[in-house]
């Protein structure tokens, strides 16, 4: 039973890790692959006797290393044209490693954001579904929505902004009640 604890913790951190992985790979498939590969490391670790004092920090490091390894060896960032500048890659990795957000902040943020997603009008949800569910590019989305890639990109940015602001408002409200 104790064996399952690290992997359960790992699964609970999925969104946080996937966010980082997507930020540095910008490839949903590769991000998922690295996440899965890192899960194997976590399972192996769970079967060893070595103690993990801070699981989240340890798992972040596993993820970070696996991701950098995947990017360097597979060079799949070419799929999206130019690879991310090394200095930005390092800056993101550093930001991810040093992020001090507590578990409760991350959890509350997730809950708030889910509610904000639920509140989006259908049209906006359709758009983010195409982007994040189908992993469709701007060209693909624009052709199915009778729009232009630039307009789709702007619309997605607006939705991100709406979701962010809505999430922050909800968090502030929660803290106010707390």
């Amino acid at each position, binding site marked *: 039973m104790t064996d399952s604890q690290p992997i359960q913790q790992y699964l609970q951190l999925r969104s946080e890790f996937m966010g980082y992985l997507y930020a540095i790979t910008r490839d949903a498939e590769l991000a998922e692959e690295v996440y899965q590969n890192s899960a194997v490391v976590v399972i192996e670790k769970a079967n060893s006797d070595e103690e993990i004092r801070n699981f989240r920090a340890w798992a972040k490091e596993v993820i970070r290393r696996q991701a950098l390894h995947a990017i360097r060896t597979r060079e799949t960032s070419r799929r999206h044209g130019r690879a991310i500048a090394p200095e930005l890659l390092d*800056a993101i990795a550093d*930001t991810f490693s040093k992020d001090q957000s507590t578990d409760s902040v991350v959890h509350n943020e997730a809950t708030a954001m889910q509610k904000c997603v639920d509140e989006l009008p259908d049209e906006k949800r359709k758009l983010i579904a195409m982007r994040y569910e189908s992993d469709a590019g701007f060209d693909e989305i624009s052709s199915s929505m009778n729009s232009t890639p630039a307009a789709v990109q702007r619309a997605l*940015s607006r939705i991100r902004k709406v979701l962010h602001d809505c999430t922050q408002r909800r968090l502030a409200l929660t803290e106010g009640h707390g």
Partner: protein
Amino acid sequence: MSETNSKTKEIEALIFGHFDHSLTEQQESELAQLLRKCPETRARFCTQMRMEGRLHSLGRDGFLSPPAPDFVAEAEASAWDNQHEVTPPSKTSSKRRFRTAITSWVVAATALLLLLTSWSLWPSGVSAASVLEQAIEAAKETVDRTYRVTLLNPIDQTVEQELRLDLRGASQFVIRPVDGSYIMGSDGSEFWITRPNGPVWVTNTYRSLAPALRRRIPNRRILGLATSPNEPLMLEISGLMTLIKRNYDIELVNSPGSPEHHVRATLRSARPNVPQHIEFWADSDTGVVTKAVTHWPNQSSRALELVTSEPLHQDWLHYSHHAPNARVIDL
């Protein structure tokens, strides 16, 4: 105040641009510098990173699409929910969205399966609409058939994955990839999945199977179709036929002198994770569909081809036949 807003907008533009792969080298360098020096940028980037991760996770699990009551809920409410203990469609919209995801592959597979399962009542020269109505009736017949299922690469149409699908009537099936990585099925009352030397996961509601597996099995990629939000399997024929009836235009496109009927179904309005076109070929004498192909928005396609109509072993649809000594875990 406006200067602060302007700076915030600049930071957000860079961050959004990064996630959209639209930054120039100079902008990437600018973002890197900000991440190094500006705590506000770091905090905002972390927040956005988590949001992107959640959006991908929600998308993968089928929670992003808007509710589509005309597309899924009604069909399920009328057919599926009557037969299984499930949450009513009037509950939360996210549950309905999940159903949308759950049923997405079905539209592909089952449209085919349905059509595949039976065609015996098909008279010559029938319209597409009458064919569909007859298929709904015929799908209720208990007939064993085995199909080869292939998932084709969108670029070169090579086979990415191959599976065998055994059907008995409308709601009993066994599906297994040819690599033997798992086997999944339903005897009409329970859905189950097992892997070599692993336990059998059993549930009486299909929709709990995929999410439960997603939660419990981190390396779920090996389960292929079973846990993919794009390709779950559910074989409730009447409900799916209703979906096709409501959402697809169907036409007969027979070739002169062909021994088979060729039917094409076209989705009326675009939706993610749903095939835009479904084609199938049916033997003009027996009505049995011999081949069907689904065409998806990302240019990939999936094909089903009839392999045999030999009767299956009596217990073939039950997990005990495939994993006789395995531990059974109820979900």
